[in-house]
Structure formats: structure tokens, C-alpha cells
């Protein structure tokens, strides 16, 4: 009877009606014979107006319950076979799932699934307690006034089951192997690079373009601008951009070209000054570096863009570099630079801004190329090593894709599994 009360209690929408409802419960208790789970049962949410319909609804069968696989515990999965009345246009409106601790007969509703469903998950179990489950099919009936009444039919209870947490998620076994392989490769090459091992990174097209572009500015006797994006030093793209600034600064120092770096974050300003000082010192011209070459504009996005806009229009630099993380301001910058006739070289890993740079700049480092260029230029073992490690990962995937396609095409499998099923994780 607990269930009836519970259903009624949850249907309380107006606390003022509590008296009526209590009265209804009393009525139900008196009028309806005490039905056990195995028989058809009629419930009513509003006893005063509903008609009791005694149609026979067939119950779901083969109710089984098992501990949910590969989880943290406290969960049991219940499966059943559809009620014979659950088909298109059939009577079943849905299923209610009830649970009882083994030995007691106090079933509590733990789930409500729509018609056509054969599975439910009870996520409110206590690990180690033995439960049994019962699934009721139900039909909602509307009388002429629009009041709802329910016809339900209960299944045979499942055999007892306990929930528990698992020590390993076996769905993810192959995934672990791949993770260990790729991580291993990355760590191996970082170590190798740190120990002074030679790591080959191909020379990227953009790096040649850097030298050329600075050279052109020298010939024309104009300035070079370097824009490191609007993100702070905690963004890897900004860091990569600053590494490239080192190279640009060296070239500028060699040629004696004025390199200007307007920034939008104070930390970037400090780092950029350091980097440039180092670069100028490296080519033996520390005195040629002027701190005013790196200056802070504003940390506001559009304000920064507008300020650079003004600078570009006034000073018409020969070359502009955009290296770092860019957002919507990329458009304004690239457009103005283009209109001023500057050679523009960009590099960013922001996918939504890449199209604009590609369309409006002479050379663009796309995504990972930015990091590769920075690794190449800085020669830092961490970066070089991980670049190589990542390439091993790519090689693994390339080979896997090709082998996979061949195997899928000929229907070959490994131990009964498609190769794609081994890679797929869910």
C-alpha cells in the first residue's frame, strides 16, 4: 500500500488539498482490496471522479537485474522484455520500476520509463545490499472530464542482485594500451632531447618568410610590427609567439630595422622586453635595443585593435607579424595591415580565426605549426621531444587508419573484433 500513498503524495500539487487527499487514501484503503504485486491493480489519482477500469494489461516479462558494469557502484541495471501490449498503438503507456530489499516485500518506485523501453538504471542503491526488482506496465486512461487514471500490471520479481564498484573499467582496456604507448613515446623523446640527443624537426616555410620579410622592411626603410595576440603569458600560444619574436628580433637587430611590439597585457610586455634584449645581445648589439620598442596599449580587445589600426595607418610598416592567440580582432588587424600594403605573416592555433589570416596574410602558420616553429626556433628539448612524441602518435594513427580500411574492406578481424571496434571507446 506504501506505493499508493507515495504516488498520491507526489501528486500533491496544492498543500491545501492535503485533507482531501488523506481522505482519498482512506477511501482507497477501504474500497480497493489489498492487491499483491502479481495481480492487476488499479490506481486512481482522484477517487471522486475517476471510473475504475478493469481492463487487463499484460505485464513485462523476463525481468532481470544486474550490477551496472564498470562503474563506481551504487547502481543496478534492470532489463525486461516488452509487455505484449506494448507495440504501436498498444495499450502500454510506460513502465514503473520497483525495488525491494531481498526478504522484505516493501517495493519502492525507483524509475519510470516510457513505452518501448526495455532497460532502466537504478542509481540509488547501497553497495552490498541484496535487492529484488519488479517492473509494472501501466496505461493512463482519461475519462470524459479529462481526469487521469492508471491501469497497471506487475511482473514477476527478478532474482536478487547487489551493486558494487569495479576495480577496472574493461571497456577501456585497449584505450589504456594506446595511452601508455603514446605517453611512453612522448616521455622517451623528451628524455632523449634533454640528454642532448638529436631530434629532427623539418624547417617550416614560415621561418624562411620571417627572414625575408624583415629584409624587405630594411630595404624599404620602414618599421616591422610584431603583434603577440591579446592573451596573457599563461596561454601556450602567446609563449610560442614570444619564442618566434626572439628570431624576428635577432634579424631586426642584424639588419638594424626598427621592430615595434604593441602588447595588451603587462606580463607579455615584460617577457617581450626580456626576449628582445636577449636577441639583440645575441647578435652583439645590446645597445641598439630600446625599451620603448615594446609598449603597452590597453587590455581591452577592440581598444587594442583600434589603437594598432591607428598605428598601422600612420606609420605604414613594411611587415607585420601576428603570432599568438587571436580572437575577433584578428579581422580588423589583418584588414588594416593589408590595406596599408604590408607583408603579413600570421601564426595562431585559434581555429575560428585561421580563415581570416589565411585569406588576408601572405603566410600563415596553421595551428600546430605555430608550436613547431617555436620549438624549432627555441631548440628547447621539452618542446622538441614532445613534438617528436606526438609525431609517433600520428604515425600510429596513420598506420591504423590504413590497416583498418584494408581490414574492414576485406572483412578481416582480430580475434573476432574489427580494428575500428578496438579503437573506439565508449
Amino acid at each position, binding site marked *: 500500500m506504501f506505493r499508493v500513498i507515495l504516488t498520491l503524495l507526489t501528486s500533491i*500539487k496544492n498543500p491545501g488539498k492535503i485533507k482531501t487527499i488523506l481522505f482519498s487514501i482512506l477511501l482507497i484503503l477501504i474500497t480497493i482490496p489489498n492487491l499483491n504485486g502479481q495481480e492487476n491493480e488499479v490506481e486512481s489519482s482522484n477517487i471522486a471522479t475517476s471510473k475504475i477500469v478493469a481492463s487487463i494489461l499484460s505485464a513485462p516479462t523476463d525481468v532481470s537485474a544486474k550490477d551496472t558494469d564498470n562503474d563506481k557502484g551504487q547502481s543496478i541495471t534492470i532489463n525486461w522484455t516488452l509487455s505484449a501490449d506494448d507495440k504501436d498503438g498498444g495499450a502500454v503507456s510506460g513502465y514503473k520500476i520497483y525495488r525491494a530489499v531481498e526478504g522484505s516485500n516493501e517495493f519502492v518506485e525507483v524509475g519510470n520509463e516510457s513505452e518501448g523501453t526495455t532497460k532502466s538504471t537504478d542509481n540509488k542503491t547501497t553497495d552490498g545490499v541484496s535487492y529484488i526488482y519488479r517492473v509494472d506496465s501501466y496505461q493512463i486512461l482519461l475519462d470524459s472530464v479529462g481526469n487521469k487514471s492508471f491501469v497497471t500490471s506487475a511482473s514477476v520479481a527478478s532474482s536478487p542482485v547487489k551493486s558494487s564498484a569495479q576495480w577496472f573499467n574493461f571497456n577501456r582496456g585497449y584505450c589504456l594500451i594506446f595511452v601508455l604507448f603514446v605517453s611512453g613515446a612522448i616521455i622517451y623523446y623528451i628524455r632523449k632531447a634533454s640528454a642532448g640527443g638529436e631530434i629532427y624537426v*623539418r624547417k*617550416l616555410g614560415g621561418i624562411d618568410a620571417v627572414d625575408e620579410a624583415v629584409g624587405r622592411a630594411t630595404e624599404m626603410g620602414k618599421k616591422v610590427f610584431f603583434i603577440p595576440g591579446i592573451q596573457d603569458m599563461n596561454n601556450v600560444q602567446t609563449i610560442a609567439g614570444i619564442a618566434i619574436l626572439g628570431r624576428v628580433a635577432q634579424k631586426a637587430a642584424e639588419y638594424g630595422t626598427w621592430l615595434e611590439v604593441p602588447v595588451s597585457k603587462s606580463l607579455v610586455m615584460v617577457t617581450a622586453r626580456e626576449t628582445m634584449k636577449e636577441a639583440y645581445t645575441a647578435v652583439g648589439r645590446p645597445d641598439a635595443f630600446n625599451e620603448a620598442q615594446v609598449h603597452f596599449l590597453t587590455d581591452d580587445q577592440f581598444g587594442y585593435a583600434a589603437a594598432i589600426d591607428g598605428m598601422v595607418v600612420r606609420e605604414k610598416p613594411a611587415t607585420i607579424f601576428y603570432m599568438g592567440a587571436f580572437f575577433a580582432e584578428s579581422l580588423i588587424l589583418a584588414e588594416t595591415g593589408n590595406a596599408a600594403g604590408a607583408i603579413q605573416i600570421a601564426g595562431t592555433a585559434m581555429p575560428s580565426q585561421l580563415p581570416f589570416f589565411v585569406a588576408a596574410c601572405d603566410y600563415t602558420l596553421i595551428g600546430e605549426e605555430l608550436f613547431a616553429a617555436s620549438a624549432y626556433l627555441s631548440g628547447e628539448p621539452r618542446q622538441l621531444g614532445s613534438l617528436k612524441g606526438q609525431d609517433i602518435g600520428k604515425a600510429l594513427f596513420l598506420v591504423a*587508419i590504413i590497416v*583498418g580500411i584494408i581490414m574492414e574492406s576485406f572483412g578481416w578481424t582480430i580475434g573476432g573484433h574489427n580494428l575500428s571496434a578496438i579503437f573506439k571507446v565508449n
Partner: protein
Amino acid sequence: MSLILARKEKRSSMDIGMFFAALLTLGIFSFLYKDNPVYKVCEAIFVGVSAGFWAITYFFDNIHKKFWLGVFPQEGDSPDYWLWGGAILGFLMLLRISNKIGWIARWPLSFIVGATAGLYMMLYFVSNALNQVADTMMPIVAYASDNSVLWLDTFGNFIVVLGVVTGLIYFFFSKEHKGLFGTGAQVGTWFLMITFGASFGYTVMSRMSLLIGRLDFLFGDWLGLF
């Protein structure tokens, strides 16, 4: 307590609100003519108001609802002492504002960085690498359920495989792009360009939508022209 909250009458000062909204809209748009004080004022209001908005929503939805009511529950519930851990880390984070003991803010920061690294490592590797690789392993010829060849799908699948393989080759940095490998990388860039072109088209679509939304507000909601 009843769950139904009576919808209160909407404010009658709605028109004043609309007027403000229109004024600010035009104020921001004035930047299109040139950077000017009106724009700067609107922008300053924007910075202040949005910071205030975030601060208030985070305060009530998280600090109050999640943390405060979690450790000092109202009725019946037992307090969740674990939540103090988060509050302590959060407090250490606030110390960053001080120059002297600001270094201690690195503790919560390393907590966040570590957790993000651990979570992202698996999420990206699984969803963006393994599952994508698995989906690229398709039979060369696509068949319909009645065993007839689906030529269009076959061609489409071929394009996907070609694009993924050559794209990966393009992003290969430890091998010189020469010979067959170089050709592959070249084809890879073509795919990337088509991808960027698609992105470009979609970005234009998105930006125009935002403008249409504003124009609809100005002419429709405010001026009531349509």
C-alpha cells in the same frame, strides 16, 4: 512550500528599459564611425556591469547555493564537510591580490591546472583521437542494405579518408616533406583550406545573424516599425 511561483506583473517601465537598451546599442555602434568618448563610456559600463553580473550569479549559484547551503544546510540534511576544501582553496586563490603572500595562490592554481590536465588528457585522447580514428576506418566501398553499391557515399568516404590521412601528414614535423610524403602534405593543405573556407562561410553567417538580431531590436522592438 509550493513549487509554483506566481509570475509577477512585468515592469511598466519597460519602455524606459527599451530606451536605455537602444541608446547603448547606438553608443557601441558609434565605434564604427570612429573610436569616440561615447563608445568608451558604453564600453566602460559594459566592463563594470558584466563583471558585476558574473560576480553576482557566481555568488548566488555557487558560493551560496552550493557551498554555503552545503556546509550549513537549512533543515534535516547533514552538512557536507568536504566542501570546505574547495572554499579553502578558493580563499587561497583570493590571496593572489596581495603582493606579499600572493605566491600561495599557486596552490589552488596548481590544483586546477593538474585536474584540467588529468581530465583533458583522457577526454581529448578518447573523443578527439581514438574515436575519430575508429570512425575513419571504413570499408573502401559503401554498400546499401540490399548490397547495391552506394557510389556517392563511397566517394564521400574516400574524401574523408584522404583528407584525414593527408592532413595528418601535413602536421608531421619530424620528417621532411619530400616525394610522396610531400605530395601528401600538399593535398593535406588543400583539405585544410576547404575546411577553413567552410569555417569562413559559417563565421560570416554567424556574424550577420548577430547584426540582424540587433537591427531587429532597433527597428522592431524599439521603434516598432514592423
